[in-house]
């Protein structure tokens, strides 16, 4: 049943990392930690796909809902304070925001054209945030991507293999990145990031 006010169901969304995160400082922390790691949870994560390049009506709906346009260039994202829309393939996007409303039903109710598909991935993806002045060095250890700040700009994103896991990596700020991964790999990712961050010293939040 869709709540007509697009409220969330009362069931609490459970994180795949529940009970796995020990907060504190670890590794080489003689000085300030070079890395800060946290889980982004709970998130609304919605995949939107159009069969053809998106029509004006579709673009208008997104613009009205979020006050910005879908990114059309590969490997880019756009964001407001609350919501980020990430390009994940030709005519395909991931819409991500902290979970406060039934985003899938809200979008579905607004789009009138029929040649699109919308999938709620909130429970299917896990996301962790990495911050700190060694973040780009850490990312380099896991992916064969150029993370130099002059190349990998803010709002840039890539889908690649990160420590052999298929991941979506998105740059939010100079040293701040979000990583999205299939839920079943969340703990693996968390542990790999921890291991990679040891030499820099890290703090889990």
């Amino acid at each position, binding site marked *: 049943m869709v709540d007509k006010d697009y409220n969330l169901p009362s069931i609490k969304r459970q994180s795949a990392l529940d009970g796995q995160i020990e907060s504190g400082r670890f590794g080489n922390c003689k000085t300030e930690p070079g890395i800060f790691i946290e889980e982004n949870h709970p998130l609304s994560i919605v995949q939107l796909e159009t069969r053809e390049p998106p029509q004006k009506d579709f673009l208008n709906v997104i613009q009205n809902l979020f006050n910005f346009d879908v990114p059309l260039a*590969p*490997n880019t994202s756009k964001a407001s304070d609350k919501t980020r829309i990430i390009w*994940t*393939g*030709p005519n*395909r996007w991931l819409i991500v925001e902290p979970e406060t409303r039934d985003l899938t039903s809200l979008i579905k109710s607004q789009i009138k054209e029929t040649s699109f598909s919308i999938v709620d991935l909130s429970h299917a993806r896990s996301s962790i945030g990495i911050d700190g002045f060694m973040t780009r060095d850490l990312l380099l250890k896991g992916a*064969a991507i150029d993370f130099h700040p002059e190349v990998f700009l803010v709002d840039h994103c*890539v*889908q*690649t*293999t990160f420590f052999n896991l*298929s991941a979506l990596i998105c740059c939010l700020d100079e040293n701040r990145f979000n990583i999205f991964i299939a839920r079943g790999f969340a703990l693996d990712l968390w542990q790999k990031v921890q291991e990679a961050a040891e030499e820099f010293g890290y703090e889990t939040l």
Partner: protein
Amino acid sequence: MIRIKCPYCGLRDHSEFNYIGDATKLRPINPELANDDEWFDYIYIRDNPRGVHQEYWQHISGCRSYVKVLRDTVTHEVLKTGLPSDDLLFSYEAEK
């Protein structure tokens, strides 16, 4: 390490891609009229060329799109990449 340029995402390591197969095979034009030999040929028979080969790859860890790749089977050099609808061999020969 082979590097493949995805027409959407740009140059990436081949570990992000899955090999799909020979891109020179064409499905019978009239599937209803094709006989068993034609289907057998389309499904099973592949050349094993030495040199330039046109093939499909999928950017499985990236944008999930199919990518056409022109690859030298001797040197593994990736000569050209493009969309599945591109005729890479034709444009490669034309540029030579």
